[in-house]
């Protein structure tokens, strides 16, 4: 008990260490990016369609400390980050943190719905077809391949055209109630489903070759029950890893989906910030993504031993 607690503590400490390193790296990269963009930082902050009088420019330079040496600016920037201050959006003149907080919930809703849908669909597809007749498999893997490789931008427009514009089943967009979540969630889930199902099926098929399947079957356990109770558990670790990794990519997917569907969220926030060159916001979202990624991969790693007892003593 104490031994495993020590192992767990060490693991958590290691994860925390690497989490801090990742965040520091992301923050530094974001800072460097702003430095490396051609043109002076005041112009970059002003964005493409703004002129800015000398007075305005001086005010911005003073506010952001551009009149100080780069090393000084970097330390100041890190210092502020440590205090949880992500700075202020130039364009919106609001703290980046509060902007992101306002837009977070719709994106979390969308991401969770998409993730849940993707995992359910992938499990159903893989369990139903693994090791079955080749024709089944072929159909399933073709559909998975298509869903994994079709641009979600396009999927979103097709879904809208059919279910919103033609049959009026769902509203075009927005984030008002369940109905407006369906199409965006499906759009975001489809590429994930494809990837997850492919990996899961291969895992299942490998597991079904294992001797324990024969043992279980010989005890009179049904075919489907073997898959669900035994084989699926074997694939759970790679599935979890992959899901964790894909969750990190959901913010990227949300940019497109939120734009097409006119939904509020982090995705549409960052798209607008990028096009307006609102760098404090862009940097804020980059750091948020890095943070989410770190949290998810930590959780995933801590879950391994829960799922697979063989990993507990490692």
């Amino acid at each position: 008990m104490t031994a495993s607690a020590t192992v767990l503590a060490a693991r958590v400490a290691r994860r925390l260490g690497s989490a801090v390193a990742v965040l520091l790296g992301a923050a530094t990269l974001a800072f460097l990016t702003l430095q490396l963009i051609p043109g002076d930082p005041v112009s970059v902050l002003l964005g493409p369609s703004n002129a800015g009088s000398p007075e305005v420019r001086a005010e911005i330079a003073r506010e952001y400390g551009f009149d100080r040496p780069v090393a000084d600016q970097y330390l100041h920037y890190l210092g502020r980050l440590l205090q949880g201050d992500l700075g202020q959006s130039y364009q919106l003149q609001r703290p980046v943190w509060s902007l992101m907080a306002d837009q977070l919930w719709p994106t979390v809703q969308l991401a969770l719905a998409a993730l849940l849908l993707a995992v359910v669909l992938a499990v159903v597809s893989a369990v139903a077809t693994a090791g079955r007749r080749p024709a089944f498999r072929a159909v399933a893997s073709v559909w998975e391949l298509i869903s994994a490789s079709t641009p979600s931008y396009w999927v979103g427009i097709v879904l809208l055209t059919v279910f919103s514009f033609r049959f009026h089943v769902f509203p075009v967009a927005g984030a008002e109630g369940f109905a407006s979540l369906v199409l965006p969630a499906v759009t975001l889930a489809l590429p994930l489903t494809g990837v997850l199902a492919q990996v899961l099926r291969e895992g299942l098929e490998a597991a079904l070759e294992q001797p324990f399947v024969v043992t279980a079957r010989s005890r009179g356990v049904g075919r489907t029950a073997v898959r669900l109770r035994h084989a699926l558990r074997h694939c759970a670790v790679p599935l979890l890893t992959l899901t964790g990794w894909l969750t990190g990519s959901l913010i990227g997917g949300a940019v497109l989906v939120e734009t097409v569907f006119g939904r509020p969220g982090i995705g549409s926030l960052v798209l607008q910030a990028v096009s307006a060159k609102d760098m404090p916001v862009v940097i804020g979202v980059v750091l948020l993504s890095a943070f989410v990624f770190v949290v998810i991969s930590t959780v995933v790693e801590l879950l391994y031993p829960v799922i697979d007892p063989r990993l507990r003593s490692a």
Partner: protein
Amino acid sequence: MRPTLSRLGRTLAVGVSGLLLLSACSSGGDTTAEAAGSGKPVAGGTLTTAVDTEPVSWDIHASTQDVTAEIARGVFDSLVSQDSEGKFHPWLATKWEVADDFKSYTFHLRDGVTFTDGSKFDASVVKANFDHIVAKETKSLYAANLLGPYTGTDVIDPRTVKVNFSKAFAPFLQAASTTYLGFYSPEALKAGAGKLAAGGPADVGSGPFVFSAYTKGQSATLTRNPDYAWAPETATHTGAAYLDKVVVRFLPTASVRAGALTSGQVQVAKAIPPQNVTALKATPGLRLISRANPGGNYNLWLNGSLAPLDDVRVRKAIQRGIDVEQDVKTVTFGQYPRAWSPISPTTPNYDKSLVGSWPYDPKLSAQLLDEAGWTGKDAQGYRTKAGKRLTVEWPQLSIQATREGRDVLGQAVQADLKKIGVEVKRPNLDIGTYNTKVYGGKANIIDLSWPRFDPDVLWLFFNSGSAPAKGGINATFLTDSSFDTWTDQGRSTLDEKTRADVYPKVQQRGIDLAVVVPLYTQVSLVGQSDKVKGLTFNASNWLTYYDAWLAEK
């Protein structure tokens, strides 16, 4: 709408005075358009509009965006309103006097105007707003420029203000008619720039609508102000607006906007792509309104200070060697008219006589190039002189180039010029390099458009005071005394006769010197349901919701 401003951002930053009139988007008056309703208006209902851009900042005193000013027009009133002929009419000011030297303007304010938070509109509010615009903390990127050489506002009595300038400032009335110089309630001003920029109920004005809700990334909602009783004379009715609510949805994807319109989920959709126009027109219950934007067309500017275009014959050869008619028609699906003048036909003092005056004539081009000494020919078929190929450089900025199919149009131009033996190089540059090169006068050709409802835009294009080195956009790189004389004369007076004399001359000379090749006039393509009546456009082609109503059907 303020496309090319982007590439100019840095260069422009330097010159405030040059920016004075850079209202790539401006003017505030409303005009009844073809959309004017039939039948008796009924009150009530919600109008939902889909637009392609979401305001980055909602602060009318700080923002530069057309879309901010367009939506906020319903919430904020101005001192005067301008009609589509350019004439000014009373609004919050019942009358005004302009000093002979254009250095001060005295406004007599309307009585009984209240903001939607209950506070009163008076002379001190005008002063507070104008002072707020020029305050450093506001970080105004546009309104402060519209105020020009502003030195302050004198409150003469509660109903009278005098606005002062350090230099003659003829365009002030026009500036005062825009949303950017609209009025916040005193309480709203106290709330601070952050609150104003964030949008929603903090943005309190005296307009026909209240900014009742805003969900970033989704929509903005305006609700009727029942007490509104001070409509500008340019509107078609008085009193409160007909609509209960206006919901503006932000749908950046063109096909989604069009689909939302055809399926009845929105009643108005802006920025319909040209390729969707035919389908939309064929849909029962919908119609399309297409209106040419005022101001600078989408033009090619030829750098007259740099070889080989320092020779007017070579410039002329290029101007006549591009099949503008055909190229524009193909690329814009026939929706944008080809241009003949650097400014559009909907701009005051447009020179009609230029139409048809410089048709496509590759034979003439060949002859001009021969005369200029470009008589050789290399293996690729390009003309040469003393062993040097006739090459021009026209840099592009990838983030802007695809807009309105400009990249494709550029290829058509390239192909046309290849036929007359001119090589066009189109390097793809990042914004920093682009600005340095283009505004440093190191490129041969620059493309840009500049919407604005005033022929003074010609000052920006041709006056040496607007040279890129001074933060301007004069991409001809020529100093021409007649350009300077005429455009200076035009901007220092509101006298119709003078303006009608000098501005056509400028357009004519620009074409004669072949420093400009106008390509097309940008057009606003707005789709709307037949149920929508009375929706009007102002001089800048922005939708105004005040007179709009929904027919029951």
